[in-house]
């Protein structure tokens, strides 16, 4: 599976995902990628998400929409309280926490994989519960990095 998420200079966001599914699939099996809400979601109010992994679990959790919905809730709460504490903008730690939390939900059900997301504030976030994820991010702030492995020791059989 491959995917991309982006925030442009006008503040608009987009998400895209493309896949061949799983080796040996039959019966017209469809995994996460082509299902809006599970593997792909974009909403200027919240974030843009693309996923990879055991699609059935992403379908059951509704991963991409779940992350966007939680982020939108945080942003709305921050906006409500901004007048008192001035902290309306989403912090990268909040986005990472929410992405990790939703991926933990996938893991609890027995699934694995990962997500990429960008936020309206320009944060580019990864979360995965596999050994690694082929990934990259670039921002106007000068970030430009690609990587494969992470620090976890679980190996996925997901293609």
């Amino acid at each position: 599976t491959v995917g991309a998420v982006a925030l442009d200079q006008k503040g608009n966001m987009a998400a895209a995902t493309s896949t061949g599914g799983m080796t040996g699939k039959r019966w017209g099996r469809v995994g996460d990628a082509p299902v809006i809400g599970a593997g792909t979601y974009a909403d200027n109010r919240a974030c843009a998400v693309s996923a990879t992994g055991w699609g059935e679990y992403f379908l059951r959790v509704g991963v991409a929409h779940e992350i966007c919905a939680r982020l939108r809730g945080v942003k709305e709460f921050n906006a409500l309280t901004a007048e008192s504490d001035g902290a309306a903008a989403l912090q990268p730690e909040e986005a990472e926490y929410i992405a990790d939390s939703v991926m933990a939900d996938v893991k609890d059900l027995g699934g694995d994989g990962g997500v990429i997301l960008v936020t309206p504030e320009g944060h580019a976030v990864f979360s995965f519960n596999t050994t690694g994820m082929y990934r990259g991010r670039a921002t106007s702030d000068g970030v430009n990095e690609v990587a494969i492995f992470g620090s976890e020791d679980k190996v996925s059989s997901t293609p």
Partner: protein
Amino acid sequence: RWSLAIHGGAGTLSRDAMTPEKEAEYEAMLQTALDAGAKVLADGGDAMDAVKAAVIIMEDSPLFNAGKGAVLTWDGDAELDASIMDGRDRSAGAIAGVRTVKNPILLADRVRTDSPHVMLVGEGAEQFALEKGFAVTPQSYFITPMRLDALERMKAKQLSALDVDLKFG
């Protein structure tokens, strides 16, 4: 301010199975895809164009499980799925089970822009592709030795097709 993130799948190789040469090959292709999307954004282009630019490069690379080099079904075919969504208006397009379209992400986007629907599957999606001028790409384009080997290894474990589909809830 702009921002871009890409992925090329998760977990196909353990650290032990990854050679330095292979790792460099993957990283170079990821960088190429990242650069393509980043250029669109740095030049003031739309997020939608940026994600398509990045995904097309990975679909065209045999390294990743999408487009050319996609994994194979039990019957040895490439069967492709894709989706795309625009955060401006939450317009979305998706296709599934397509076998003849070189860049499925572009067909998903045409579903978004040129059909009244969100998701088309199988023969219907391919008929839509033909009507919109997409070239018919032969299966031989998508199938690579690496994916054929993977399917053969799976079948050599004496799994039945039923075993492959047992799981997941």
